[in-house]
């Protein structure tokens, strides 16, 4: 059986652990540096780490020897400002910069593409690399789409791409999700895009635009690898399910203790099984009653089991960000990290959780290899 390695990107470094090592945390890489994203490329085996140095900007590092050593590689860069184009000012009146603010998501291409990478960034650029990160190209078809100018920042000042889904059967079929900018679909490897996602609703906006697919605040979008038509998403205003690859969405009602949250994961082989981490609501981004729980559905969202064995509370106020919940390829092993620096793993699909640490830096993202 392959080793179950877990990589944890935090405010102060990249940490590692594995089931085979009893979930003991190993030595950190980039200790002290702000890690916004991490990717172990399943085909090439390279590890990519995105850093945000604040003063010194956003950087990208790569390891081709399993993490023994890293080299800095070019970070995605926005093309020179076109002085003939009006600056992009969002509905908040903020001028969107044409410079990299954050690498928010890193994904490998299709299993046939050993050096393909996708990077989702703030302020909203999607980048592609076909040489393992030696160079990056802005996906200009999306950046130049007039509808993109409707995007705006959610929790961040500027919009960003946080979810990138490559169809498991078709490397040219890409779906991305934007906060706030809805869901976008390409069937030609990114040459052209359409804004999809009917059925979502943004009740925090005026009714005239609340159902506009182009302004939806999707917090996280995932798709079932074995049943790619099935997607789940955590939206700012609830949990949704799609049975046709994101074209239409059905809201899941009556989720207790809450349907607000950021993270979402789906079982790799069972499309009806998905996990979410509820927080009270948008203006109270803390667990209900101070109890950290995980919601699991096994019937497509008809019912949820609220799982808390091994999780803290009352008086626990951990917030789980959108990239800080993951499931391994078996669907049995989950990991979850919080802004309070807590790290938990479950080896039984979320029924019970083991605390690995309560003292890590704030966790932004974690993922199994």
């Amino acid at each position, binding site marked *: 059986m392959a080793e179950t390695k877990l990589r944890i990107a935090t405010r102060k470094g990249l940490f590692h652990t594995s089931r085979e090592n009893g979930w003991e945390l190993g030595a950190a890489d980039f200790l002290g540096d702000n890690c916004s994203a991490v990717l172990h490329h399943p085909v090439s085996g390279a590890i990519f780490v995105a850093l945000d140095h*604040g*003063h010194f900007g956003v950087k990208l590092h790569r390891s081709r020897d399993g993490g023994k050593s890293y080299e800095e590689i070019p970070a995605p860069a926005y093309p020179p400002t076109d002085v003939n184009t009006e600056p992009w000012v969002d509905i908040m009146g903020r001028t969107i910069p*044409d410079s990299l603010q954050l690498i928010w998501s890193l994904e490998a291409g299709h299993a046939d593409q050993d050096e393909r990478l996708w990077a989702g960034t703030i302020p909203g650029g999607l980048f592609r690399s076909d040489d393992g990160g030696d160079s990056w190209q802005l996906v200009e078809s999306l950046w130049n789409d007039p509808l993109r100018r409707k995007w705006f920042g959610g929790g961040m000042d500027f919009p960003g791409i946080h979810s990138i889904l490559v169809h498991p059967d078709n490397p040219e079929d890409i779906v991305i999700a934007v906060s706030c900018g809805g869901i976008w679909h390409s069937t030609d490897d990114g040459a052209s895009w359409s804004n999809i996602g009917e059925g979502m609703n943004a009740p925090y906006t005026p009714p005239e635009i609340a159902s506009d697919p182009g302004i939806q605040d999707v917090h996280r979008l995932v798709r079932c690898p074995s049943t790619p038509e099935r997607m789940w998403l955590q939206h700012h205003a609830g949990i949704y399910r799609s049975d046709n690859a994101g074209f239409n969405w059905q809201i899941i009602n009556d989720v207790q203790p809450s349907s607000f949250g950021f993270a979402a994961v789906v079982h790799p082989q069972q499309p009806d099984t998905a996990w979410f981490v509820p927080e009270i609501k948008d203006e109270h981004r803390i667990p209900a009653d101070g109890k950290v729980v995980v919601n699991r559905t096994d019937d497509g969202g008809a019912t949820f089991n609220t799982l808390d064995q091994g999780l803290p509370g009352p008086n626990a106020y951990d917030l789980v960000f959108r990239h800080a919940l993951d499931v391994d390829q078996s669907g049995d092993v989950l990991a979850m990290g919080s802004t309070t620096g807590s790290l938990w793993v479950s080896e039984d699909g979320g029924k019970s959780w083991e605390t690995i640490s309560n003292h890590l830096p704030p966790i932004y993202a974690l993922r199994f290899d």
Partner: protein
Amino acid sequence: MVTVNFTPNLRRHVNCPTTQVEGETVAEVLDKVFEAEPLLRGYVLDEQGILRKHMIIFLNGTALKDRKRLSDPVPNTDSEIFVMQALSGG
């Protein structure tokens, strides 16, 4: 000749020794430094060539005026540039 110094906090990330180069503007001076250390450019300037928001450059003790194009003229006499972090944030 212009002496260019970088904040020691940068040394952990990228090679940035104190360097002596020539140039008529701050942009020209830094371009020569970056030719020798290409990675260093991105730590000081963004991809549009603009001085990063939380960086500051002093030319002979005066803060750079043109943060977008770095066009501040460098006097012919011996000059000194310091590239530093602005003390913004907490």
